[in-house]
């Protein structure tokens, strides 16, 4: 088996330790920045929905500021964002380089996108349901929990899956600040040293990763849609 692998992917076999490490770094970056982004994006998405004109607590100021801010952040290419937020990164995680240094820019890159996903998912909840809940005498918090979030679980899962897949793409750029990960691994060996087998191995790994994420997502959506 190892012989066969050495034959078709000699460089990969030599770098297998580093390869496994790169996978670990990618998963680490995804888990930490994904987790943080999920919480922040969820909160902001709910805030946007609640403050929207015609929402359960309309607030023009909060809505406009947040809406514009998200648009601005979404229009900055990630590779620029990565370096632009370095001072902030230093402040938050103590270091602007390495895997930890990639977390802050990844969060900045993911939150605006995920917030929009949540906003879209919540907007799909029929306004009649909110009206019915209000007529029942539910408080705004109860409406958010028991109606808005509960009814949009499939939409939230779908949005989360799209976001995670795009996060996989973002982590590949983290190499620019020394964040490591599969993208960095592929650029350094596969591209710069022309070790094509490494490029292919990375592509294959990412493909498997994305497929797994999507399969899990589809399953959850299926089980929560009635």
């Amino acid at each position, binding site marked *: 088996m190892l012989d066969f692998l050495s034959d078709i992917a000699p460089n990969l076999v030599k770098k297998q330790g580093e390869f496994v490490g790169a996978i670990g770094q990618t998963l680490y970056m995804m888990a930490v920045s994904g987790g943080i982004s999920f919480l922040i994006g969820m909160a902001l998405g709910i805030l946007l929905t609640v403050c929207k004109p015609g929402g359960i607590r309309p607030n023009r100021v909060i809505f406009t500021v947040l809406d514009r801010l998200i648009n601005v952040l979404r229009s900055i290419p990630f590779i620029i964002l990565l370096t632009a937020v370095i001072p902030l990164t230093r402040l938050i995680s103590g270091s602007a380089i390495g895997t930890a240094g990639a977390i802050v820019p990844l969060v900045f890159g993911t939150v605006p996108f995920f917030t929009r996903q949540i906003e879209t998912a919540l907007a799909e909840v*029929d306004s*009649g*349901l909110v*009206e*019915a*809940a*209000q*007529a*029942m*005498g*539910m*408080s705004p918090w*109860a409406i958010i929990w*028991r*109606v808005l979030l*509960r*009814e949009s*679980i499939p939409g939230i899962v779908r949005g989360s899956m799209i976001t995670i897949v795009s996060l996989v793409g973002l982590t590949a750029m983290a190499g620019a600040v020394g964040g490591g990960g599969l993208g960095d691994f592929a650029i350094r060996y596969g591209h710069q040293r022309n070790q094509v087998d490494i490029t292919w191995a990375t592509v294959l790994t990412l493909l498997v990763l994305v497929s797994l994420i999507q399969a899990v997502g589809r399953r959850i959506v299926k089980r*929560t849609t*009635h």
Partner: protein
Amino acid sequence: MLRLEQLGKTFDGREGRVEAVRDVSLTVKAGEIYGIIGASGAGKSTLVRCINLLERPEQGSVWMDDIELTALGEQQLRQVRRGIGMIFQHFNLMASRTVLDNVLLPLRDAALPRPQAVDKARSLLKLVGLSDKEAAYPSQLSGGQKQRVAIARALANDPKLLLCDEATSALDPQTTLSILALLKQLNEQLGLTIVLITHEMAVIKEICHRVAVMEDGRVVEQGDVYGVFAHPREHVTRRFIDTASPLQKIYRLLAADSPILRLQIGEQLLRLKFHRQSAAQPYISDISRRFHLDMNIIFGDIDILQDAPLGSLVVIVRGQPEDVARATEYLRQSDVDVEVMKRA
């Protein structure tokens, strides 16, 4: 029970300000079914939403028993809303919850422990005839079943008042009747006061005790259903009544100058309306004998409103003009409305 005083509500629409509700005052008595009818855009949906303040009226006040709802703070308003059930045209059930969980939803804020709440929800489902569907999801139900779940949900907190916003408009005629029968049963069994809005006169006719007719945001006519049907004052009321009556066919025939309604010299086409007492009398044979008239019945119809008959006949009369005049006078004195539709 419920008193609306000079309610007013305007919306800023794309085409300027729309006065959805203008100076509406009405009183709903405990235990009655009060219907509000109007064409779409007449403001009836806004009006019903002003009752539980889903829409805040800009002028006027809403009183329930002796509480002024329009003066309540948010917290107190929520408390009052729990005592007012509401059902909707599109049912508004939570698709992610089972039938039982939908009915349990309004009980979450009540101080009822879960097992009791479940018992209560089950008994409500039994009341609306859906005991066997508690584990189903709304998407697996028919429209009529969904509305039954919505009714069970609306009753969860033992409301004294139920608001129905076009509750049967999305249902077929058969299902509409069964839902109306259920509402009537709840009204009689539980003493539930119902305010119902609709654009169908047939719904009013079927279950309402009193009715208000809305046009352009105003209530133009109100009264007990029999009175309004028997003696409509406003043009719009008459139009609504005609939509629920097969009599409009006659008007169409008349407008098209149909040969059925063509009169010979000396003939008249009359529309006779019989009320409570007069509907039971054999007036046609009576007047034809008494005044030597020939009567040809073109169309006849009888409605039962609040257990009292309301009859309509369209007849062609032939006879001496003075006999016809005397017969008309005789009928009018006997509480029969006579309208001359056409004279030859």
